[in-house]
């Protein structure tokens, strides 16, 4: 298991994010992708226009291998968990074709893979010990599972997880 960070030099439109995710999920070594970016609010949350709908054109539902995914952030970086590094060249090619303004790819450790004390307090020992290990570190501690994690089914009956992580 290795983790890589794909860092395009621009914030991505929903269309580009959709293409990137579709191409990445076609690779056999990709296990999960965490999308990190700027949150796009549904309504104006501050100031005289508070409560007015924002209708941001990039906050929309995209299609990833047939699964509708609601993008709630403007994607700025991707943390991708890979089984091994055999398809790094293909990832590089995908990036080259989509991010003509430049990008960085870094191999490292970007998410936690162990349960924390908070997890044990929040969910209980039994639940933490039983849970799917690939879900650890997938989302922000305060985000809700239903709205932030999507499971993309794979041909080989294995599943891909995808999550959103917003950052202000």
């Amino acid at each position: 298991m290795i983790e890589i960070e794909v860092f395009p030099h621009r914030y991505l439109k929903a269309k580009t994010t959709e293409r990137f995710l579709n191409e990445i999920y076609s690779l056999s070594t990709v296990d999960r992708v965490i999308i990190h970016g700027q949150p796009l609010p549904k309504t104006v949350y501050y100031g005289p226009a508070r409560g007015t709908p924002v209708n941001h054109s990039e906050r929309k539902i995209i299609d990833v291998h047939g699964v509708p995914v609601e993008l709630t952030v403007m994607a700025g970086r991707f943390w991708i968990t890979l089984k091994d590094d055999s398809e790094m060249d293909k990832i590089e090619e995908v990036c080259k074709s989509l991010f003509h303004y430049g990008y960085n790819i870094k191999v490292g450790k970007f998410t936690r893979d162990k349960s924390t004390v908070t997890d044990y307090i929040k969910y209980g020992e039994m639940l933490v010990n039983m849970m799917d290990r690939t879900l650890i570190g997938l989302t922000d501690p305060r985000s809700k599972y239903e709205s932030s994690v999507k499971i993309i089914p794979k041909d080989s009956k294995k599943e891909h997880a995808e999550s959103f992580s917003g950052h202000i």
Partner: protein
Amino acid sequence: MAYEPQYYPGKTKIAQNRRNHMNPNVELEKLREIPDDDIVKIMGQRQPGEDYKTVHPPLEEMDLPEDYVRDLVEPISGAKEGHRIRYIQFADSMYNAPAQPYDRARTYMWRFRGVDTGTLSGRQVIEMRESNLEEIAKNFCIDTAFYDPAVCGIRGATVHGHSLRLDENGLMFDALQRYVYDEKTGHVLYVKDQVGKPLDEPVDVGEPLSPEKLVEITTIYRKDNIPMREDTELIKVVKRIHRARTLGGYMPTEDTFKDL
């Protein structure tokens, strides 16, 4: 001998651009012509064509106590009429925006009277009598090379975005999407006013400047353009101020200030 203001130290192009902004005798290049009414719409504080609201009667009609300062200082036209005070706020991207908050503050103070300005890390607010503010916003802040539709944003609230990467169209990130890039015309259109209320019709603020032009007119020192460390004169002045404030603050003796 009469004092001649030097405005800003430094020998680089960036320093020169800062001096050009601050020097009231330099006329900045006029790049666009946005109609008055459109500016009023973006500011969102008055309907176009509506009379200015007032907070006090015209100064001439008021019975004010005698004050020699009042005789010395000529009021600006909006103050004479009693117009209310309104604001406009700009956010400037660190990707070579023509102006940035500190430069804006100094420029406003050098160039205009009756202005109250507030500087924050990513935004800069100007408060002024409404009629004068609209005039400045149009003739100086938006129509000239002081502004770029892509990397400067007119944002009253929720300004987040100045320190982020640009989006794919080269626009500064805006969570409220007050302006959009029209891919057909290549122009930037304001679809909301500065606080995020939708406009009836989009306001065209023109084409974004090319990256080469922005590099020429920017007032931001950047490692991929002209880094601050290249400007030896500026570094000298900054160090001098630092020394005077820190060492001088602790030990204000003759020796501390000797070599400054």
